[in-house]
């Protein structure tokens, strides 16, 4: 099977998962607060553009790293 180029990593929220829980799962080396802040900053489509901001949906693409250079 052909190789895929590297793209930005993402996860999708689990059922009833909070931002802090998601951050802990996706960024285990960060504190929950720091991880949540990073997730917020990388996902403006959820945390800035959405009404209400921060409403996590089961189908969301949540990036767990910044845009690739």
């Amino acid at each position, binding site marked *: 099977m052909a190789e895929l180029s590297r793209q930005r990593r993402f996860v999708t929220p689990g059922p009833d998962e909070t931002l802090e829980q998601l951050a802990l799962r996706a960024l285990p080396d960060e504190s929950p607060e720091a991880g949540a802040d990073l997730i917020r900053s990388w996902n403006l489509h959820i945390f800035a553009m959405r009404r209400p901001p921060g*409403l996590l949906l089961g189908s969301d693409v949540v990036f767990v790293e910044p845009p690739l250079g």
Partner: protein
Amino acid sequence: MFDLIVRGGTVVDGSGQPGFAGDVAVKDGRIAAVGEVEGEARRVIDAAGRIVAPGFIDPHTHFDVQLLWDGAARPALEHGVTCVVPGNCSLSLAPIKADDRRRVVGMFQQIEEMPPEAFTTAFDWTWEDFAGYRAAIEDGLSINVAPLVGHSVIRLWVMGAAAQERAATADEITAMQDLLRECLAAGAVGLSTSFVDVDETGRPVPSRFAQFEELDALAAVLGEYGRMLQCVPEFYATDITIARIDQLAELSLKHGIPTTFSPLFDTSAVPDNAPRAIARVEEQFARGARVWPQMQTRPIDISFSLLRPSLFFARLPRWVRVLRQPLDQRLAALRDPDTVEKMVGDLGPDGGEAMMGRLIVRGGDAAPAGLVGKTLSEVARERGQVPARALIELSLENGLDVAFLSASQGHQSTDRIGPMLAHPLVHIGASDGGAHLASFSTYGDTGYLFSEFVRKAGAMSLEKAVAKITAETADIWGLKDRGRLAPGLAADIVVFDAKSIDRADELPAFDMPGDGMRYVRAARGVDTVLVNGEVAYADGGYTDSRSGVVCV
């Protein structure tokens, strides 16, 4: 004796091969012969100097409601479109329980901008299940319909109000699978889902509350039938679009299904958006996945007045709230200085110059003749106001019946888009036919393909353009009976003039139920359209033919 012969034209059969002089004979609704046809027919259509091609297939429409009173999906059919795919973006008109109708109507109004009268006066809503909807439209069809079933309505049927609140349980997912099977057996061509749409209150539609596991379970059912999964991704952000491509590819590979996402736009604001997405599609196809990006031909033009809500204000929640109110309340709000002050303030310190300054005052309504064709920036300067305030006050002075055009908001570079449309993995579609009625015409994209990208830009041959919107589309969607002029296949045929086929100017029409307004474009250069062997459109008019079918 044939029923009909289209004689003496240039046959462009959908294969992409060069056209050839010949005839097409029809019997019992099917193509009986192609080439130099001998014999007689009850009717002969002279196609000298014309192209004879398979009927065009429009794979992304929202004609679900219109088909209940207009089986031709006007004016799509007169453009040569003989098959439409409604039910996109997670919304279809079945299966829906009677108690959920009002909720779904709100979602449809948000997406289609259809007036409420369309749902209350134009038809009797007698069905709940998918077979019932099919029966409700089928007798009146003069165009073929390959309907998707919407993920959001399947979710709503199984979960009720919780469909817009939470993840589904394992039992609920099983129930959704069973319901999807029932819909596919009743003629659904696949499943649609949405990662973007909201209802009339701004709340995400039900499909957006689904975990990936739920979509995976539904895709497994699609795999049993080999049917399509369509989605609308977050097309405004390339990284998210690529993530969606990867999700679709995973489902395609795992379940052996075709998938498609729409729309894919080109925009000067993010010039690498479409090229990056297409590059990812190429990588996924190389792995064996089928993820077809749908790209529309037309530029993004949005028209609006303050008589009704519009896509144009999507990023201005206060404006949306004001414009969604009944007319008397809306007028009161627009006359209230405090409200207007806040609305103008929402545009920022430039008073809307950046967002609204280039709007053009359209004709055809109550706009003062002297202002037609001017930009809102010019009008505002003459009035000594900022554009946002000028827009509101000019509208109020004329009963709100002043239309503004926001032209070329993106996807307008023919030089860039032509090669993308010609790309073998790009699926021409995403017309949104029957949706966004009060914002722009969703009819005539096929004519524009020929006028702009074949004749003007030379981005592809006429034969290639025909293949893209006929045989290739039929193959992508598994419509085995459509898309080619070949003996034995359904006789969906369009006769057109290669030199003049085009879309006409965009004009307002008041032909929706309740005198509802929509923007339309008539067809140019299309002479005759046959659907399943019967003439459905000819000589500039529709016939009484009702030969359309629900096809899979």
